[in-house]
């Protein structure tokens, strides 16, 4: 279904060709190659390796239905189907990834309550299908950037649980040397640009990443994630406008978990609970973010679209079980019933589990075996993090400028420090 606006051609005409677009034309062959590229390499996991995926030829697969996409400014005949084929090994992979994320976030909750994690800690449990679905539609050639709710993105972009939990607990073994904490996780090797504390700031950065892809002809699409609260930041509108003007290959992803901290979308958004039309003059799409297959199919379409036509605004309808952060109980602005209702009816992990079990592709014991291995991985990571040392004192002075510099301040001996 599209929005009420008449279907417009999917490729708006550019006005004056921007120099970058000329380069982009030259790299069209590269883009075409990336469109035909293999699906995302699954993140390596001992459990998955142990399972030994059966070959594609003889493993069971089925077409699964999901909530249809809502679109805006997308040709009616280009909107992807509300169903997709998934194989047993794919579903097991999604289950395992999401379960790892779920257990890691719950471990972070316990670490926070035990005061091993201090400061601000924003958990992603409930939203796992979003990042797992996205990663299954893109590759590590596609740069990813998101907000402070970034633990699971750091995991999906290749960091180990030990590195993530070490960073959260402020240890030197953390992904960013313990200097960034929960909100500032990065993995440049796999083109993950954080982990950004200021709401909405990652929007224009996403446009810049997309421009780099286009300029360098590296063929990637930038995926810039932000929340329903951030959608109200002026800089998001600025990023959308620049991306549209220069036809940058970027997907703006609004993770609509319906609450910006303590304020519901109904009380903070002029457009109510729909964000996919917020791009106004760029196409938009609304995806059921609690269904990993819906997210995967939606982003396969969005990636192809962005590489060919420029920015697209994808809203994923999702939900967070925890409050905004560990400082927020999460029940002063929503009821416990609402949270448990969603857990019962839309939990992303349970959905994939049901697909596997109901189709008798796995026995419950096999899934329990995976769960046991994940819990082992989490326990080891927690133990590792608790035992790791904090960053040494001299790291307070590193990474301010590129070169060594004098950081003035007051020591006990009143000197400056180099």
């Amino acid at each position, binding site marked *: 279904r599209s929005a009420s606006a008449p279907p417009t051609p999917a490729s708006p005409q550019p006005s004056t060709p921007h120099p970058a677009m000329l380069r982009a034309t030259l790299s069209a062959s590269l883009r075409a190659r990336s469109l035909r590229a293999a699906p995302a390499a699954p993140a390596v996991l001992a459990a998955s390796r142990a399972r030994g995926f059966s070959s594609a030829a003889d493993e069971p697969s089925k077409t699964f239905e999901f909530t249809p996409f809502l679109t805006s400014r997308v040709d009616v005949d280009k909107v992807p189907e509300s169903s997709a084929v998934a194989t047993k090994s794919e579903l097991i992979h999604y289950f395992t990834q999401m379960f790892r994320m779920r257990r890691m976030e719950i471990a972070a909750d316990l670490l926070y309550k035990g005061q091993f994690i201090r*400061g601000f800690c924003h958990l992603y449990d409930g939203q796992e299908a979003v990042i797992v679905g996205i990663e299954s539609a893109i590759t590590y050639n596609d740069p990813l950037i998101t907000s402070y709710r970034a633990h699971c993105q750091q995991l999906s972009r290749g960091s180990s649980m030990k590195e993530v939990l070490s960073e959260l607990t402020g240890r030197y073994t953390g992904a960013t040397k313990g200097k960034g904490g929960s909100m*500032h996780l990065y993995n440049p090797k796999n083109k993950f640009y954080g982990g950004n504390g200021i709401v909405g700031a990652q929007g224009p950065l996403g446009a810049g990443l997309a421009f780099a892809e286009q300029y360098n002809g590296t063929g990637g699409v930038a995926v810039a994630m932000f929340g329903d609260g951030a959608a109200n930041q002026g800089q998001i509108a600025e990023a959308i406008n620049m991306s549209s003007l220069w036809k940058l290959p970027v997907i703006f992803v609004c993770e609509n978990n319906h609450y910006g901290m303590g304020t519901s979308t109904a009380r903070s958004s002029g457009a109510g609970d729909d964000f996919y039309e917020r791009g106004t003059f760029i196409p938009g799409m609304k995806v059921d973010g609690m269904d990993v297959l819906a997210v995967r199919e939606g982003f396969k379409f969005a990636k192809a679209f962005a590489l060919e036509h420029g920015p697209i605004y994808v809203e994923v309808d999702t939900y967070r079980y925890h409050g905004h952060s560990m400082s927020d109980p999460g029940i*002063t602005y929503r009821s416990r019933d609402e949270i448990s209702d969603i857990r019962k009816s839309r939990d992303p992990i349970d959905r994939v589990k049901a697909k596997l079990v109901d189709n008798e592709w796995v026995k419950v014991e096999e899934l329990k075996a995976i769960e046991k291995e994940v819990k082992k991985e989490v326990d080891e990571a927690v133990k590792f993090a608790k035992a790791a040392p904090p960053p040494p004192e001299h790291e307070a002075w590193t990474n301010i400028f590129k070169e060594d510099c004098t950081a003035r301040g007051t*020591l006990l001996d009143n000197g400056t420090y180099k």
Partner: protein
Amino acid sequence: GLPPVPPAPRFDAPVRAAAARAAGGGAAMPRVNLVAAVNGALAGLLEEFEHAIVFGEDVAFGGVFRCTNELLSRFGPDRVFNTPLSEQGIVGFGIGYAAMGPGHLALAEIQFADYIYPAYDQLVNEAAKFRYRSGGVESCGGLLVRTPCGAVGHGGHYHSQSPEAPLCHVPGLKVVMPRDPCTAKGLLMAAGKDDNPCVFLEPKALYRAGVSGVPEAGYELPLGAAQVVVPGRDVTVVAWGAQVWVAARAAKVLREGFGVEVEVVDLQTLVPWDEETVVESVRRTGRAVVTHEAPVTMGLGAEVVAAIQEGCFLSLEAPVRRVCGYDTPFPLVHEKYYLPTEEKIVECVLDLMKF
């Protein structure tokens, strides 16, 4: 010999006096914390000015620190309401409302001072220049932006900043930072009524750190007036906000352990700041230290030190020093190392005494 140290005035004497004037004497002064004091000031402004409004992110349910607790139920959703997550929009919107004229108090909240930067353009280029560029025919004096600032023990890069320097550097804005509940209520009410755009920085570490007697009635303390909180003879330490308490603790250590009498001055209003009180103090003591959490380079301390050396040159026994945060982003795990602690102040003062 040296002149005797004057008897320590009760540091809340100005508050008592102001409260007594406002309430005709005998005002009740229950002991409450900073959150309650701020809440009381906002309620007082909403009561007195029917065109006063309170708005910001999550203020309707009481706010993340509860400073706007129950204001919605008392004053209604037309006057106390949430905004979307749009700092630039919040402050710009407030400027426009305040521009309607006197009595239009736009009491905006920026959830953490670290988030004030999207609104910085509105503050600098709109709010601060409104009166000047209109030749005085228009202004937005009713704008008051409240925001929690400062270190809190675990805030990291974006929940700990003290952005007073870039704010104070803007002619046309007033910037205020209280040190405790009873001065906070008086300063906040004064800032709200002051016909200039104001930024009210609330040290979040002090929100529930302690209580003091706060008059139930509304009252004001003068803006632009510093206060000597600890009288002394040997060295003047200038501070504001939570750092006043760090300086007071250092003063105690220095008096009891080393016989050095430190005079602690709380600026209270950061701009326009009370140069006269500070200069008068340093002319008496001959030594001065300025201390603040924000990084030392280009901090507010530089301004105070410049004025001290200009006004007290012939009275100085030693160079004027600063004990401040380092020139790094506010760190996460290294916070204890970064902060200008009482030990650092003690060392600095002892250094000055040996000069």
